[in-house]
């Protein structure tokens, strides 16, 4: 089954004519993702990698029945791209673009409230359901079809952990990079709700990091509601307070949002935590 993206995913690439957009369109096509359309306002009519390009997402949806969008536009235009996708009736938006002001995410969240649409990201590396579809920039070759769901706030750290999971002989049902910004469309708990109902998923790995209290809230949620085994990792144990560690959301405010606090609450909620990426894969391997 998998979650979010699968064989029914019909993808429109927003910003397909850009450097990243065209490169990853090729990568996604190679992986077998059904990329059906591209959008770059003003460039409607051309083809990229054999994919028709439209001026508007609405037109792309009308002509190709696209249901999922991936956004590769520069940060200044990403907000508009998200609204356009929502208004066009896209049901899943994966925003790779980073650098969106937080207050715009506050507004987008409110705008999404009564819409039948889910946003993953911004600043997401993408979503992959191995063997079915890859939406975003995650490198396809590290994945293997399997029963471990992965949810992560970061990009390359996700590759690292997925790679370990694959190398210990397990595979993934779906891997979601939820993005490293303080306010994101889809949080750990939202993914867990989906994984709970996905028969293909037997265990879940949560890759968290410093900043905010999403991991903490998720731990309590898991303790109360989530029946499948969950494993955790938290990056940033050595991060100093009040410094932004790359991701806009990765910042310890005073003494809150530390890795130690998150690991502690994970453990209190019976979530096994790996000290290193390799250890996470070993923990999963031993349990399933």
């Amino acid at each position, binding site marked *: 089954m998998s979650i979010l993206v699968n064989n029914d995913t019909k993808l429109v690439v927003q910003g397909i004519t850009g450097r990243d957009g065209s490169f990853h369109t090729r990568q996604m096509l190679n992986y077998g993702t059904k990329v059906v359309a591209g959008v770059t306002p003003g460039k409607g009519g051309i083809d990229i990698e054999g994919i028709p390009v439209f001026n508007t997402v609405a037109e792309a949806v009308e002509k190709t029945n696209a249901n999922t969008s991936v956004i590769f536009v520069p940060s200044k235009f990403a907000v508009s791209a998200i609204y356009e996708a929502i208004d066009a009736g896209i049901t899943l938006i994966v925003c790779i673009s980073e650098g969106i002001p937080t207050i715009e995410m506050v*507004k987008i969240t409110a705008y999404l409230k009564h819409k039948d649409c889910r946003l993953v990201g911004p600043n997401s590396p993408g979503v992959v359901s191995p063997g079915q579809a890859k939406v975003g*920039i995650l490198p396809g070759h590290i994945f293997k079809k399997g029963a471990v769901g992965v949810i992560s706030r970061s990009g390359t750290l996700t590759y690292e952990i997925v790679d370990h999971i694959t190398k210990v002989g397990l595979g993934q049902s779906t891997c979601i990079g939820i993005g490293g910004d303080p306010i994101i469309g889809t949080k750990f708990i939202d993914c867990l709700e989906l994984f709970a109902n996905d028969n293909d998923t037997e265990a879940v790995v949560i890759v968290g990091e410093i900043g905010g209290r999403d991991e903490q809230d998720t731990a309590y949620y898991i303790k109360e509601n989530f029946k499948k085994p969950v494993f955790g990792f938290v990056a940033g144990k050595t991060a100093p307070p009040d410094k932004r560690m790359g991701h806009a959301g990765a910042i310890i405010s005073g003494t809150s949002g530390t890795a130690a606090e998150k690991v502690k609450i994970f453990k209190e909620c019976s979530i096994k935590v790996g000290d290193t990426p390799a250890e996470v894969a070993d923990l999963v391997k031993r349990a399933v």
Partner: protein
Amino acid sequence: MKIHEYQAKDIFKKYSISIPNETVCRTVDEVVAASQEIGLPCVIKAQVMVGGRGKAGGIKIAKTDVEIKDYAAAILGMEIKGIPVRKVLVSEAVAIASESYLGIINDRTEKKTVVMACKEGGVEIEEVARQKPEAIYKVYADPLVGLLDHKAREIGLFLYENPKVAFECAAITLKLYKLFIELDSSLAEINPLVVDKSGRLIALDAKINFDDNGLYRHPDIEAMRDRESQDENELLARERDLSYVRLTGNIGCVVNGAGLAMATMDLVKHFGGEPANFLDIGGSSSPEKVMNALEILLKDKNVKVIFFNIFGGITRCDDVAHGILQAKKSLNIKQPIVARLTGTNEDKAMEILKEAGLIFAATMDDGAKKAIELLQ
């Protein structure tokens, strides 16, 4: 991004939030002149962007001309948490009837802007949130309609019994919210907000942080950045579009991706080493970016070993390898380099680097361990 109290107060002034009569000074002479303008007693406040200025002796009330000179000299000569005090704010001593706290942030969990009020002023709000959460009154702004008047009135009526003061507070709350939204703040705080003896509300202290992602649309705010008091390596990294944070260890880390960069630091520490820095060279990294990264890294004289941890995706390992080769040549790198390069084009990278004298590692764990060994 952070700014100084005096800069935040300039912004308050623009938004018609009352502040004390005050002047920013760089020298003792300027302080003396300012105190004569303002009248004694005066408060002298160190302008450094860290908490706990008061405890560190960075805030003093001077009642005489002698005290003015003494305190000004003392504060302008001190360091607070390692940061030298270069400016002070000289301010009228407001006769305080009551103090409270008013602050605005974006709540990550609720995904909404939240106004927080507390009847105790001068507190560390995160401390109160942990210890006595019921003492904080919160109202959420509607993300699309904004902070509604009645929500601002709620804040005012929570803090003050006197309706006149409560409504003045509501007006200040709306102004602070306007500022917060219009300037892409991540924190706008009046702590303490005081009622003076005449019943007027005054922002005695001001703190405004900004969302880095919003700065591109506020060049006037970007121009407020205090370059003097920032780490020069961090400034340089920012200019070169790299994410760098200086730490106190001796193993320099070069990583692609923020999460992996943190995990790399953690791993070094896990195996008994000390990371010298956080350094994310970003996604599509060119050889030039690797060069830039190494140049910044090497300005930190504590760095004894360099650990490259690259998981190629968009980042191509061969680009990184070329960058390392170029840097070795032009920067005269003496420190040993441990390289773990995996993913896109890793074979090409190995080919490029085979005679570069690097120590190769197959995994992160392996790389971290080798880096630590090299120190001994």
